[in-house]
């Protein structure tokens, strides 16, 4: 079973993250960048499926040259090969453009049975790209998976939402996006790290992937960030005087926030 995992390099959530002043796109230079944690889980799930069913795991990313590091991390964990879509014209692409571009890149990988992705990246937090990619490719989309099983040509997923868990299935090929609870990703082993440098990484420009430059990039995007403001500093919060009913009022507050 051949699996493509969509991965993304994002600013480390431990570092200060910001948008550039000039065009409100992500400021990649001012933060340490890492392979998004949810993508590590997607890669882990792909490797577990590969261990059970065989086939090849290909990691795909769209991003600047530095995104090679994110691919290398995934290869060190055990993925077989990588495809990197990198072109200056992609700068500022929105979710729809990104999904179309990724769909083209997935099309360059032969015999794909399953596309895996994280359900939401920690930088933009759109959470839309996986379903959009499925739409463009005409694949069934099984999103927010906390468990994935493949049986012959069927993929079964436990889909977790705020309301509960849905048990859904689809015929392969399909796209699955995974949530935080899917697994604990492995550490890259040193043998894996040493082997990764010998694994094939294909770098594609727009033309190589058959993407029209007029359809991507900030100038052609359907959505644009027109203004951005930092989150206001935390206020003092809400004070509850205990008049004998403190416990009940705390419980009511937590229940209203859906925390209990």
């Amino acid at each position, binding site marked *: 079973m051949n699996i493509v995992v969509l991965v993304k390099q994002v600013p480390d959530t431990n570092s200060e993250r910001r948008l550039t002043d000039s065009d409100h796109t992500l400021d990649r*230079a*001012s933060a*340490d960048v890492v392979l998004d944690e949810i993508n590590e889980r997607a890669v882990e799930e792909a490797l577990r499926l590969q261990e059970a069913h065989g086939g090849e795991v290909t990691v795909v990313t769209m991003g600047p040259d*530095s995104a090679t*590091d994110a691919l*290398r*991390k995934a290869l*060190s964990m055990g993925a077989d090969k990588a495809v990197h879509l990198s072109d200056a014209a992609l700068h500022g692409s929105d979710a729809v453009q990104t999904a179309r571009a990724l769909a083209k890149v997935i099309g360059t990988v032969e015999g794909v049975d399953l596309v895996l992705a994280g359900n939401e990246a920690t930088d933009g937090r759109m959470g839309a790209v996986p379903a959009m990619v499925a739409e463009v490719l005409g694949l069934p989309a099984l999103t927010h998976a906390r468990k994935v099983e493949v049986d012959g040509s069927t993929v079964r997923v436990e889909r977790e939402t705020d309301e509960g868990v849905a048990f859904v299935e689809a015929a392969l090929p399909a796209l699955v996006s995974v949530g935080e609870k899917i697994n604990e990703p492995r*550490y*890259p*082993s*040193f*043998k*894996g*790290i*040493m082997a*990764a*440098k010998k694994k094939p990484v294909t770098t594609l420009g727009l033309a190589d992937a058959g993407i029209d430059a007029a359809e991507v990039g900030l100038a052609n995007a359907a959505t644009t960030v027109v203004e951005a403001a930092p989150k206001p500093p935390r206020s003092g919060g809400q004070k509850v005087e205990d008049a004998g009913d403190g416990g009940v009022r705390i419980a009511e507050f937590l229940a209203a926030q859906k925390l209990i």
Partner: protein
Amino acid sequence: MSAAAPERTTARAGDLLDVDRALGDEERLIAETVRRFVGEHVLPEIEGWYERGVFPRELVPELGRLGVLGMHLTGHGCAGASAVGYGVACRELEAADSGLRSFVSVQGSLAMFPIWRYGSEEQKRRWLPGMAAGELVGCFGLTEPDSGSDPASMRTSARRDGRDWVLNGRKMWITNGGLADVAVVWARTDDGVRGFLVPRGTPGFTTRDIHRKMSMRASVTSELVLDDVRLPEDAVLPGVVGMRGPLSCLDEARFGIVWGVVGAARTCFETALSYARTREQFGRPIAGFQLTQQKLVDMAVELNKAALLAHHLGQLKDAGALTPEQISFGKLNNVREALRIARTARTVLGANGISSEYPVMRHANNLESVLTYEGTNEVHTLVLGHALTGLRAFQ
């Protein structure tokens, strides 16, 4: 920050010279991976292990899965990393605790290395894959109760009896001794010093752990007792005769120490810096006082010099050009300065410096062992004295 901001720096408070910029992609990923591993598996527990005097045996297979054990060796399940890669792994391990790095040094450089370098194919097949995987533990028996800096004076002997070997003697201060499935024991023979592979459970071979330690408490240190231990002919390492054997192993391990202590010193420095910035006396952070700044700057300067030295020796080793005298240089300087940094950091923390709430005193205590083992400060000084003058102050 402007668009010309440097890419890919591991911006840490004390890395004034951006020393890690010289790392390759694999080495960077190795450092990151070990840092994450110790952050998740070691740092939450280390103070407790240290206070109770416990080595976390359960981590050994995890270290094996990671690929740390014998990582700089090739084949037989070893990762085949560069010397610099091995160095950064040692640095990140010892940033947590010198005992953990000592385990890895002994396993990879003192037990696996002699088997890999001097062992027969059969010995390599029998031991190396299990040791790389962390299923088997090794130790290295050279030092004796009355034979430390002068290892050639060892009393442990191996004599021929028919085709067998019979070993007698005692080895002391042996890291991993009580854990070891196999001991690499160096003994005098009629032909000179030779190495023997002594499996755990061989009749006449026993170990006793040394418990009353004020240093390296999260590490197993033992005595090996060899009382008419009968070994088959193929227990001897065929590839080396003479002191060159054990000394070459020590060069491997010392290289790891040169890097490792940079990690211990870094932890002490970072602890002192963060403490000094938040601790207030006379109404302001003590980091603003000139005497404290002097301490922080002296620590940072020595830390960066030690890191540079480790990188330089790593590059020499990867080029196959590293000499024993250069390793002495590195061990002498980096351990001495790491210990100074740990002690200075302790003073910055005041009374809190002696508490196990902070890692500083633990590192300082550990470094007292590192100062002595694998060649004392004094011996490395005299190795360099000989290199400079051509005159031997000992032997």
